[in-house]
Structure formats: C-alpha cells, structure tokens
C-alpha cells in the first residue's frame, strides 16, 4: 500500500502548476492515497507479455497535405485575451 504524504502532494501540485495550501494538501493526500490504493488492484494481473493500448483504432501517421492554409485573423484570436497591446498578448514579468 502506497502512502501519500502531504509533501508528495505539494510536489505533484507544483508540477501541475496548482497552488495549494497545507490544509488542502492534507485533505488531497488522504483522498489520493485511497484512490491510488484502489488502483493497485491492477497488480493482481500478470501483464508481462501484454502490449499496451494507447488508442483503440488502427490509425497510423494521419497527416494532412503539406500546404499552407490561412490561420485565424489576429483580431479574432485576440477576442478572448484579457490584456493585449499592439497585437501581442501581455503577460507578467518573465525575467527580473
């Protein structure tokens, strides 16, 4: 049985770019531990010689023609952007 610690949850949350409080981390640790323990049921099965399924249909290399197509007009693309200037998206400071 895997034990999920508060520290592990904080680490995973950071990887997923989620800010969580210590209190939330404890709560999620309990829930995620119960869920991952339930998932260990899969270890009953011997899957040594089983191929993984990534996709159910036999599709390979679906490609379009190498031809340029027009993109969306810039003002349309900016329609849902909260802050923009001169056709560019404004973001917080990246480098100090």
């Amino acid at each position, binding site marked *: 049985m895997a034990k999920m610690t508060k520290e592990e949850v904080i680490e995973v*949350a950071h990887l997923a770019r*989620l*800010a969580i409080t210590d209190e939330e981390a404890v709560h999620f640790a309990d829930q995620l531990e119960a*869920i991952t323990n*339930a998932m260990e049921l899969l270890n009953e099965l011997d*899957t040594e010689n089983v191929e993984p399924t990534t996709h159910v249909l036999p599709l390979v290399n679906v490609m379009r023609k190498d031809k340029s197509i027009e993109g969306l007009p810039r003002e349309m*693309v900016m329609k*849902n*952007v909260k802050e923009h200037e001169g056709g560019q998206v404004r*973001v917080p400071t990246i480098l100090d």
Partner: protein
Amino acid sequence: MKLADKTAKELQELLHSKELSIADLTQATFQRIKDLDPKVDAFLALNEEQATKQAAEMDQMEAGERGPLFGLPIGVKDNIVTEGLETTASSLILKGFNPIYNATVVDKLREAGMVIVGKLNMDEFAMGSSNENSYYKNTKNPWNLETVPGGSSGGSAAAVAAGEVPFSLGSDTGGSIRQPAAFCGVVGMKPTYGRVSRFGLIAYASSFDQIGPITRTVKDNALLLNAISGHDEKDSTSANVEVPDFTAALTGDIQGLRIGVPKEYFAEGVSEASKQAVKDALKVLEEKGATWEEISLPHSKYALSTYYILASSEASSNLSRFDGIRYGYRTEKAGSLLEFYMNTRSEGFGDEVKRRIMLGTYALSSGYYDAYYKKAQKVRTLIKQDFDKAFENFDVIVGPTTPTPAFKIGEIIDDPLTMYANDILTIPVNLAGVPAISVPCGFEGGLPLGLQIIGNYFDEETVYRVADAFEQATEFHKETPQTWEGAAQ
C-alpha cells in the same frame, strides 16, 4: 397534445403542413424552458436572440431544402464550442469565454437546419457523475428534484427528460451520456470512438471522449447521429469509414439475434430492481426472436482503476492549456509568471478537476510511470480483448447501464471512490472504444433505470435495431416525469 410530446417526425409534419412555423416552435421551446428550467436548472446560457432570427429566416426557405431535423430545437452540452455563444465546460476558468469558431458537430447541426437554443450544464470539464461538480449550479433530475440527473452530461439528459428540448448533444468519456440518460429515463448513445468528430469538444481524455445524441426515442436518436457522424480532417482520430443511414436499421426484426449477458455486470452493488429490469428486458427480446447466453468479460473489475489512471493522465496533459493567458479566467494575485499560472489554475479549477490533474500528474511522473500509466495501458488491452472475444460469438452485449437509479444531491459528493463506482458498468465500453446505448427499461422507487446495449466497432446499426425493437415492445419511453406537466406548451 403538447408540442413537447411530439417526436421529430411529428414536429416535421406540423412544419411541413404549415400548421406550425419554425418561429412558433422556437418561441414555444423558449417559453417551456422559462417555465421549467427554474426547477430543473439544465441550461447555462440561452441563445434566444440568434435562434429567433434564424427561425424566422428558415421559415422563408423552400420545403424541398428541408431534411428531417430542419427547424427543430436542440441543446448542446457546454464543453462543445459554439461561435459567439459563451462556452465554459461548467468551469470558472472559462467564465466569459466566447469561442471564435464552431465545433464540427455544431456546424453539422446547422447544416441539418437545427436551431441551437442554448448550452447545457455538466460536471466541470466532464469530470463527474452527478452534475454537482459544475461551478455554476446543480441540475436536478426531473423525476425527483432532490436527486441528481447523473453526469457528466446531466443538463443534456435532464433537459430532454423534462421536455425542454427534444434533442441534445452530450459527450461520453466513461459513461457521461449513458449514465445520465439512464438516471433521467431517456435514450443516450455513445458512438464508436472515431465515429463523430471531436474537433471543438473541449478535451478531457482524448483517447476516450466521444460526442453523442440524447433523445426521447431511439428513432430520433438515430436521426441525430446521422447528422453529426463522419470523418473530419480537423480531428486526426476521426475514422474514415462510411456512415450508413442509422434509421434504416430500425426494422423491428431481431429474429436470430445473439445476445451475450456478462455475469460481471450483475455483481455486488447492482440493485435487485436493476437486475430484474434487465432480466425482464431479456424476456421481451427473446419473445421477438433473440437468444441470450451468460458470458464472462473477466477483466471488468479492473476497468475502473484502469480508466481513472488513463483518463486522469490524459486530463493532466489536456488541461495544461488553461493558464489564464489567452482566454478565460485570470487571477488578480500574481507577481511572477509562475505565480500567475499557479493562482489562475488553483482559483479557476474545482476540487474534482484538481484531484484528477494531480492523480494524472502523479501517474505520469518519473518513478511511477511504469507502475501506473503503462500498467493501465496494458490492462486496457486485456479489457479490449474481452470485448473482441465476446463479439466473435454475439451480436450485442446487454446489461444494466448503472448499478442503481439516481441518488440524492449531496449524498456522495465528498466520497470520490463511491462516486467513481457509478460508472463501473459504462467505463469498460470506453476503454474498448465500442458503441453503446442506454434506453429506459424500468423504475425503482419512482426513478428510471436504463438498459445498456453494447455493440461491435462501428456497428451502431445493430445497437439501434435492438434498442428500437425493445422500445416498440415496451411503454417505458412513454412515461414522463411530473415536472413535464409544469408548462403550457
């Protein structure tokens, strides 16, 4: 007889004979929504101005240009993007998002002449089985307003069950069309993976997600699937296979049909009433000339764990696009770019979404990848093989859609594992990618039960034929909830 009692064919006849105009039908639909939705809470946004304008224009078109769905109203699940109509996937993180293009299915609805009346509530990003994970509101089950409509397409199923609209679109990743259809006593189809384009469906778990129709009758369901199916070069996972006329399969003839009934679908946790309703349904199908046999899908009990590992992993990747930069919610509290991302996402996502993002991130992280993600992909193969073997000897697989009827709002929302178990009978179908329908087959304590009919890859025709034969022989689909009578139209 109210307009809400009519099938697509009956409505079309009224439009054709000019007894009813599309403008009148559209107006009556909005009136019925206004009368009933304060109780049911199925709709998030209404498209009244555009729909009214569209209806008036369509009334001017020649009768010769009209298909079977022309002028008929439909509601669309809120994770399907609609140009100029707010689309949130029931999440705060997409509040105010106005898509700049239509999903392929939405373009197809418009081509068929359907009038989109609004967007339907759901569990946030389609993660949930009760609609309680919506940021905006709880949709109620029209059969009992204290119970959930199911999820994640709960708004889509409830709106059809209450007769607010005759048609809706839902999406099904682990049972999200069939489970709410069963809970609300309507017909819900999850097509074969790849049958319907996912372009413009806000992705949850891309190798499982599939859009499908929810209606009150099997025939109407087949009509709507006709309209939305087909290969789409904008979705590289859509299948380039021929789309038959699904309504042509509704012959009523199931003589010689071979039905497999998996013993695992009658295991612990499945209510006696649910088991009995399926046994009664098998008798009905037998009387029509089908035969059935007990079979085994031996890996069924591993499906739930497999699904939650794989779907959460895919979700953790898909949902990384929501960063507050280009659209949607954006935090007020941020110094650095990293804080901006983290605060936007933790303020914008609800708890269930965070749980699945973290679970997926964990399962994909170094050191756990083989133990969880790769292991689950291998078990997925075993589950798929169970179905492949069964379809060598049987035309369809039949069982209950859900272990129990709808539960009370608030009853299990704080217990994720119990909530996940709702989908124990629908999830294996998504892991394999085969099509399946839920049709009404009985009641328990005044709440509907669903019969699940599962077919082989791209054989929706047989699924529909069996569902229609069952519907013709029974009266369950004619029952309406008490809420139904709460409107004049």
